[in-house]
């Protein structure tokens, strides 16, 4: 019960301080879940994001559900998801009217301009932290570069990029790496 409460509070904090959508949440999650609480290893965060990206729905909810499940099963998943949703829910209910009135006042715009600059840094930091566990050889580097160009220049949708990446991964793995893997096992 104590663990569930801790999970709930941690994700409540994450939900309360994430501006600019799911991606800005990743570094905060890494900090809380990997560095402080040591619930999940840094390199496992990548797989959390793989699942969060490949499944429909908000990235924040997907990754919270997955991390919660990893820590404490279905109950953990429920505690984490509820925690990450609740701040947004409460804030919107209590502030919706005020925000519609003052959301575009000068001081609010300035404050959010500052926050948005940090959001850029937070997202770039997430890339830095995960680079080593994603880009392990020339094959993965190639997939990363090609997928970025396809996404950026040809506006490929994330799902299509993930499917193509998965297929490319299967082929490269099967052709070049599988034999090495089994040799290593023997």
């Amino acid at each position, binding site marked *: 019960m104590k663990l569930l409460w801790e999970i709930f509070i941690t994700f409540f904090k994450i939900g309360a*301080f994430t501006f600019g*959508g799911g991606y800005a949440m990743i570094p905060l999650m890494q900090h809380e879940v990997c560095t402080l609480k040591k619930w999940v290893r840094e390199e496992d965060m990548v797989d959390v994001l793989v699942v969060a990206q490949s499944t429909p*729905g908000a990235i924040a909810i997907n990754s919270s559900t997955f991390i919660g499940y990893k820590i404490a099963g279905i109950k953990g998943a429920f505690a984490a998801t509820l925690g990450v*949703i609740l701040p947004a829910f409460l804030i919107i209910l209590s502030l919706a009217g005020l925000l519609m009135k003052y959301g575009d006042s000068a*001081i609010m715009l300035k404050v959010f301009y500052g926050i948005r600059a940090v959001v850029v840094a937070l*997202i770039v930091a997430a890339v830095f932290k995960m680079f080593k566990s994603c880009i392990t050889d020339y094959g*993965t580097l190639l997939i990363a570069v090609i997928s970025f160009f396809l996404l*950026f220049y040809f506006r490929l949708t994330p799902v299509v990029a993930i499917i193509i990446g998965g297929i490319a991964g*299967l082929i490269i793995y099967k052709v070049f790496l599988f034999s090495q893997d089994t040799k290593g096992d023997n």
Partner: protein
Amino acid sequence: MVYLQLFFSFFKIGLFSFGGGYAMIPLVQKEIEAHNWLTAQEFVDIIAVAEATPGPIAVNTATFVGFKTAGLMGGAVSTISVALPSFIIVLFIAKAVKKFSEHPVMKGLLYGIRPVVISLILLAAVFVAKTVLFAQNGFLGLDWISISIAVFALVGIIKFKMHPILLIILAALAGGILY
């Protein structure tokens, strides 16, 4: 029965939007138009509110639309139903990943998907950077205040392991004072 309508609409939105909150916006727009829940202006306001408040954009939007349409219960119903598909699907996937993580097909898939995830995150950074790091009247067309904030934050988080919440609060103050 407005609650039922909200439930099905937001469940559908949660189920069919891939790629996070922003990808969800066109779907929400379609549902709102189909049911005449909000005016076009109100919808634009929602996006602004969702951006200005913390938390997943999907949740912000669902709560807001539900609340406007059918009060507190409406907000609760919409929020739960937008999160429900994610919750169920991820639980199934999490179990499968645990079970098959050593299977060669799963290894191959993950080998290819991991670098795509890096690209997707980098892309998100580029899109946010576009809205904040440039200024038409700035030196070289760049907004040096926000670039300084971003660089300071990046060094703070990577080198000094500063807490992201602290950085967000500092940036909010810096934004309020410097601009």
